[in-house]
């Protein structure tokens, strides 16, 4: 769950990016920067309290140059470094993505299945959820053999469960009440 601080920063960045008509670009670069902050080799250094503010700013500017971040995002990361909010960057990127999806009328879904879904199956599911939500669907695919069969689709906080595992659990409850799988 995204915190209030991360949401405030993300909203501010979103408004600025929208003014500059660079929403998609900012979102993509923010994702890359967030991945860097989450990186176990670089993240702890960036978040270290032993690092001086000046040194942290220099470091983030170097990273911004290396990642070819936009001027807006470079300044934004600099502010986060000054305010020691870099640890909130992944949450900000996530909320920014949500705002962007809402702005563009998109919805992100995660499809989990016991076997890899072929293209046709993915398209069928994407199409179904596009019709269900009335939005453009951005899919993510994952394979989970524990599902045994079928598919589970997560849309935001909602879960559509068509897995064999869940059907077996439901059947077991109906038959035996407390039978544990």
């Amino acid at each position, binding site marked *: 769950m995204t915190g209030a601080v991360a949401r405030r920063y993300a909203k501010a960045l979103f408004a600025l990016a929208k003014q500059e008509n660079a929403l998609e670009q900012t979102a993509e670069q923010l994702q890359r920067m967030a991945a860097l902050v989450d990186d176990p080799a670089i993240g702890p250094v960036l978040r270290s309290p032993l690092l001086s503010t000046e040194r942290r700013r220099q470091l983030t500017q170097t990273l911004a140059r290396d990642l070819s971040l936009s001027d807006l995002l470079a300044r934004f990361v600099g502010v986060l470094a000054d305010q020691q909010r870099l640890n909130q960057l992944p949450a900000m990127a996530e909320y920014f993505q949500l705002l962007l999806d809402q702005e563009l009328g998109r919805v992100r879904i995660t499809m989990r299945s016991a076997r890899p879904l072929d293209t046709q199956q993915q398209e069928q599911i994407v199409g179904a959820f596009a019709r269900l939500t009335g939005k453009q669907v951005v899919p993510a695919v994952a394979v989970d*053999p524990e599902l045994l069969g*079928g598919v589970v689709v997560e849309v935001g906080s909602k879960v559509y469960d068509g897995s064999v595992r869940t059907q077996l659990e439901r059947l077991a409850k109906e038959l035996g009440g407390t039978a544990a799988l």
Partner: protein
Amino acid sequence: MKRPVTRLVLMAVLAFAGSALAEEAAHAHAHETASSPLGPLLFSTINLAIFIWILARYVMPSVREWVHHRRTHVVEALEQAAAAKAEALRLREEWEQRLVQFSRSVEEMQVQARRDAERERARILEAAHKTAAAIRRDAELAAAYEVRRTQEQVRADLVRQAVRLAEQAARTQLTAADHQRFIAEFLRQVEP
């Protein structure tokens, strides 16, 4: 009491003395008048008259008084005996009544004791029946609970085994066509 006896003794002495004197006189006179038979008769008659007079004058009142006294004493003794007899009769009647009362009390006590014993027996029997019923009910409940628990355990075991078998079957036997069918079923449920 002492005075009449003294008087009686005195009268006896006088009578004896009178009699002896009269006899002595009669004897002396007999010598003198042996030729006349009326003399001794006269003296004997006088002697008897004196003797009777002495008896009547001095002895009879004492005898009469003694007899009266004796009679009074006997009457009192008889009255006391009668009173004692009446008291004894009263006591006997009282004790007879007490005995009758005691017998009646004993009978009543026996009846009451039998009644109490009967009541106690009934109470004990009722309590025993209640206890037995409670034990039976508890046992039935416990047995029913055990049966139900066992049934649930058996059912749970069966379901667990069935699910495990189904899981194994799903892992090994599900084909791509099955997978496609699951997805199609899922889409049918999701589609508005």
